[in-house]
């Protein structure tokens, strides 16, 4: 039986210990003494392994992150998932953009990269946009915001 336990951790804090003038330098390079907290008790969890495993490739997936420290998403981006010529394709129908890859995760990553590049191009100061691209820019602005912290 597989087991698991999880915990939300508290922020860690390190201490700077002043080095005495006559203290050998190698002592200041030693790792501080550490006391491990008790290992959490692992609880049995359900694991599917016998027979045919259920496929979890969804028909739709919500993208929650752009993997770029400059941007965050105000709301998740709904993507349709399909398989075309043995590649997984994710499509955002609202602006007709897509990403593809060998797996859903790879396709989502590819889509995220496409979206980051598109956002940079449309929001570049020198960009001169027609009506269609203005609409795409507006849609992107509804979902993506620059990170302020």
């Amino acid at each position, binding site marked *: *039986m*597989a*087991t*698991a*336990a*999880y*915990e*939300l*951790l*508290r*922020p*860690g*804090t*390190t*201490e700077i210990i002043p080095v005495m003038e006559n203290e050998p330098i190698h002592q200041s390079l030693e790792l501080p003494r*550490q*006391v*491990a*907290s008790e*290992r*959490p008790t*692992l609880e049995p*969890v*359900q*694991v*599917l*392994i016998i027979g*045919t*495993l*259920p*496929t*979890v*490739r969804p028909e739709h*997936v*919500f*993208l*929650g*992150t752009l993997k770029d*420290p400059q941007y*965050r*998403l*105000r*709301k*998740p981006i709904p993507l349709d998932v399909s398989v075309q010529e043995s590649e997984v394709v994710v499509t955002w129908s609202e602006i007709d953009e897509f990403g593809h890859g*060998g*797996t*859903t*995760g790879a396709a*989502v*990553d590819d889509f995220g990269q496409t979206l980051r590049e598109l956002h940079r191009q449309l929001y570049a100061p020198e960009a001169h946009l027609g009506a269609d691209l203005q609409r795409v820019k507006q849609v992107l602005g509804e979902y993506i915001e620059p990170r302020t*912290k």
Partner: protein
Amino acid sequence: MADDAPIPSVVAMLICDQVINEEGTNKKSLIGVFENFNSHVFPALMPRLAVYVKVVDAQGAYLFKLRLVRLKDESLVAEFGIQANISDSSHHSELAINMGNLPIAEPGKYEFQLYYGEIFLHRVTIDAIQISGGVPWQPPPMNS
């Protein structure tokens, strides 16, 4: 999922043998970070494995899902629900999931996928590699 909770961004997600929390300072040590694992035989049981996740922009009540997926056919091997109440979005939040006896059916690529509700947040791929030698796996004897 809470409607008003912001979507967290994952800034780190690592697979290791164990996450240890230091009692006095709450500093974490990730012991044995890895990307691949070898086994003489499959199916294999991973005796211990931990996932460390660090997120930003989280504030409120969250129900995360951690899935282990076999990438060959994107089939679900295991799924864990993680409930977290995060009070302060100005700090990073960290999660540690320690697991034992995870069954790995066959060699190949596997992926840990982190979801917030139905929202895909992050993924980490690991490779299960069969190495030569060893004793073939035998099913445990049935209890009569």
